[in-house]
């Protein structure tokens, strides 16, 4: 690609509301089992895309396709102006430097401490001096409120703390897109809210675009209808303004196809019997 063209892509992507992730007629099947039949959607810069759906509807698979952990059978996938469906594993590594993926259950490295987990990418895959990495790790752990757990092993943490460490690990290298795979599943409501707050803070204070995969409706609506504001050095989570609320787009998958797309309000008033049943 010529240098000028690259610059144009960069310029476009730096604009607010630029399409950072584009799925264009993506299909995927494992043998005879069709996971994604024909899925197209766009995630805009600084916005939140919440993907809902029952188990096995293809939600997590979509995230794996975005990160290149799985390859789609057909269709085009753009992430930050790069076609990840065409890149080799080594080329995708460059795309992944701007993607923070939070796995179901966290997927923390159980032989490493919390500090080593959070700083993994910076310690192992960057030339950043050690003192700076340590500083960044402490900054990130402070952000999610787990500074005092820094030298513990993941097995010594509670479920909620593990998810928050997973978020810290994914945000440590300052990616502009965060992908959450069932980040609150299996957590009690109070702990789930602490995790939701982290997502809201990252989106509103750091300008991160997010894709949230979940079947926890309560958490999905919480993230869509709240926003983080900084008031005199303090961060507060408040009700979102109508404009802010519209920046969170819901999308529902059913058996590999999109059955709903729209904001929180449209979802609440949806008339489709399947969606109504899902919401009830």
């Amino acid at each position, binding site marked *: 690609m010529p240098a000028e063209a690259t610059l144009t892509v960069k310029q476009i992507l730096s604009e607010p509301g630029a399409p950072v992730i584009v799925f264009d007629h993506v299909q995927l099947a494992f043998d005879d089992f069709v996971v994604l039949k024909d899925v197209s959607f766009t995630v805009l810069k600084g916005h939140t895309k919440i993907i809902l759906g029952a188990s096995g509807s293809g939600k997590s698979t979509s995230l794996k396709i975005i990160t290149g*952990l799985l390859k789609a059978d057909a269709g085009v996938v753009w992430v930050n102006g790069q076609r990840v469906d065409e890149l080799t594993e*080594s080329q995708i590594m460059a795309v992944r430097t701007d993607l923070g993926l939070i796995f179901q259950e966290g997927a923390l490295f*159980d032989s490493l401490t919390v500090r080593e987990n959070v700083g*993994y990418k910076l310690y192992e895959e960057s030339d950043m001096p050690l003192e700076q990495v340590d500083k960044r790790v402490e900054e990130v752990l402070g952000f999610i409120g787990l500074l005092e757990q820094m030298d513990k092993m993941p097995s010594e943490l509670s479920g909620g703390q593990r998810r928050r460490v997973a978020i810290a690990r994914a945000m440590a290298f300052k990616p502009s897109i965060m992908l959450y795979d069932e980040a609150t599943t299996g957590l009690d409501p109070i702990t789930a809210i602490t995790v939701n707050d982290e997502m809201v803070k990252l989106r509103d204070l750091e300008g991160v675009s997010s894709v949230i995969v979940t079947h926890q409706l309560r958490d999905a609506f919480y993230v869509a209808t709240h926003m983080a504001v900084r008031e005199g050095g303090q961060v507060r989570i408040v009700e979102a303004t109508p404009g802010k609320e519209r920046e969170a787009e819901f999308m529902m998958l059913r058996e590999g196809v999109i059955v709903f797309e729209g904001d929180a309000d449209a979802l609440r008033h949806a008339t489709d019997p399947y969606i109504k049943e899902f919401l009830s």
Partner: protein
Amino acid sequence: MGVLQRWAKSVALEVQEYVYLVCAAVTDTFTRPFYYHDVVEQFDLIGWGSLTVVLLTGFFTGAALASQGGMTLDQFGARPVVGRLVSASMIKELGPVLAGLMLVGRVGSGIAAELGSMTVTDQINALRALGTDPVRKLVVPRVLAGFLMAPVLTAMSDFVGLVGGWIVSRYQLQVATGVYWSSVTRALYIQDVWMGVIKPFVLGFVIVTIACHVGLRTSGGTQGVGRATTLAVVAGSVAVIAVDFFVTQLLIYMMY
């Protein structure tokens, strides 16, 4: 027919994935990035960690060989050449194979269980998502350590086996120390030494690559990890014996 076809396909797939892994591991050894810290750690775990079990095996094998060999040789009045029997058996065959089998039990099972549980808990995908190639980070250090430490362990096992044979020869069979050791060295030709040295390189490589392959292909939760560990030990043990046979044939053809 359907069952047979599915089985043939799955076997072909496993072979294909194994060959891919081996090729990637070899290529990644000579290209950057290279995780020195992990390589040193694996040399310690695989090399130093396996020393005790390999030495004990070698010692008792050498001692048993001398004891058994002594009885057989007595039938021909050839007890003084017991050292020749111990050294030929230990260095050419039993040293590499038994050290290999011990490594399968200790190292192969450990690698399969570790990589298997990392696979089923998505830690391997997490590595990839964080921009690390799991082959470079996990497989290359283990393969290097297995490939280079197996010959060192085997050489030590051989020596300790000869010492075990000497103790039995000297105190049970009443063969003089000088007679034993001169018999040990007289039986050995340079080709025998080469055979004893080349084999463990191949066996170390095969044991670790099989374990890594099985570990990284694990599926099915904790039960799957159990299955992977068993498979790594069974497949590794059979591979050690089979590869030993083929390498022996090749080396005989090339050197003798």
